[in-house]
């Protein structure tokens, strides 16, 4: 008999993932890594939706995840497009290099 993992643990895991993502977004300076951190945060939200759906025995939380997955994919496409157009112009640019606009 396999021990059942309580949804609470998934919620804690999701909270940690969200924290790691948010922390990474703030300290890392490579735009690509920053994208990955945002993905981590979105997936933390997905995991919370699924864990909550299991806890409440409600299918709505699981369907929400499908919408989020599609939206996240679309976001990545756009983000990478913008990133490529920057890196073509300035190879190896980090977030700190993108500082022409300020004040």
């Amino acid at each position: 008999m396999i021990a059942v993992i309580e949804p609470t643990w998934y919620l804690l895991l999701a909270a940690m993932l969200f924290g790691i993502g948010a922390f990474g977004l703030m300290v890392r300076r490579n735009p690509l890594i920053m994208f990955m951190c945002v993905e981590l945060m979105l997936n933390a939200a997905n995991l919370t939706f699924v864990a909550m759906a299991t806890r409440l025995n409600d299918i709505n939380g699981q369907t929400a995840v499908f919408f989020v997955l599609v939206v996240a994919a679309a976001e990545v496409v756009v983000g990478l497009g913008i990133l490529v157009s920057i890196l073509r112009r300035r190879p190896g640019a980090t977030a700190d290099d993108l500082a022409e606009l300020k004040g």
Partner: protein
Amino acid sequence: MIASLLAQAGDWTSPSIDWAALAPEIVLAIGVNIILLLDLQLAETKKWAIATITGFVLLGSFVAVVVLAVTGDGARSLFDGRYVVDDYALILKALFLLAAYVVVLLSQTELEEGGYYQGEFYVLLVCSVLGMVMMASARDLVSIFVALELLSIPAYMMAAWNKRNRKSNEAGIKYYLLGVFASAVLLYGMSLLFGATGSTKLTDIGAALLDGDLIGLDVVAVVFVVCGFAFKISAVPFHQWAPDTYEGAPTPVTAFFSVATKAAGFVALMSVVFIAFPGADGVYQPLIWVMAALTMTFGNVLALRQTNIVRMLAYSSVSQGGFILMPLAFAGEPGVGPAALNAVIVYLIAYAFMNLGAFAVVIAVTRKTRSGEISSFGGLFSYAPGLAVAMTIFFASLAGIPPLAGWFAKFNAFKAVLDAGTTAAYVLAAIAAVNTVIAAAYYMRVLRVVWMDEAPDGDTSPVKSPAPVVAALAITVLGTIVLGVLPNLIARAGAIDALTGAFAG
């Protein structure tokens, strides 16, 4: 889980859909495809036709909204109340479509002369507008999220549209990274909210939060959701992207961001606050109070020291956002709710006209001067008196001088706040009053340059504005003056105690 899915699949029937209520969205969705296909067929020299067709698509959708408003008998509720077409939604849909139409007029010559990708631009613009139009009706966390992303994702691309320009690239990536971060925060808040209340439908969430005391999870969820929207409306301390993106993006796109996407953020925030959070007013009210006070103060103080007009308008738009946010800080006080809702909608409508107008003047003038510096506007009155007068109207309206639209909007916002009658309300109203004076200072500084100074390069040849820009100016001047002189037009239209699901108890 699969077994329960299959068990549910047996008794599933297709919901009956009120297609007429969805007409504005359907027109836009079909329009997007038509524009995309036509763009493939048209020769490069005939791309200008796309702008005209986009205008007709927006007009068609606008007609659908008007027909729904005239023939509608109360609210039409679709998908078990998760998508509602009521007066509130229709007014805001009309606002988004009108703002988008003005942006099309402004973009037309800019895109033609700049050699940008014209067809794709309008496809993205209409996609973004479709997201906004959906946002006005969305009454479910998932549909709010999807609408928000549908309006944001094309906007990220539009910010980086001038892809040969490093500033535009930078504007795009900054907007993208912070926008996606905000979406993640919002989504995490939504997932917690779903867990805490057991539903994604706003009315059910509202009922669940009203029922019993708030627990820690509810509080965290409400804070995350409000902060997620705060990014979209560029409220301080989540405003850092706004000035950079506004300055770097092509100016018509900036006009679109500062009016339409901001209004869409407010619409989502209003739906959530009024329908889902009446039980959590102790949580969101202080949060919004602090954000409103910080937003108007920081926006104004930073606007004071700008020398670039677009950047100044960016900070001015941040600070105007604080004024729009102000009534929401008291949305939960007894009896203030309808007044606060009315004040926000009236402000959004007035703000759309005057801010689009201000950007229209900037676009018209910079076509000649090729400079965004405020000093380059010197002598405008001597060579382009029409533009100088239009600029005076818009800036005076932004400063809140009667009898222009901005004055009535500010008056309404103050009235809603003072209706609350608490100490917090009086303090916030006092902060807002001080800010109105600071704001007047930098608007007047620009007007002094326009009226008093000489042209810096001595070039006083008249400005030749293309017809679409003149049309945009005409619409916005008319709107700004008419709404100021006859405020009853929107005061009544804004009196919507029928935001379905809200103010029930």
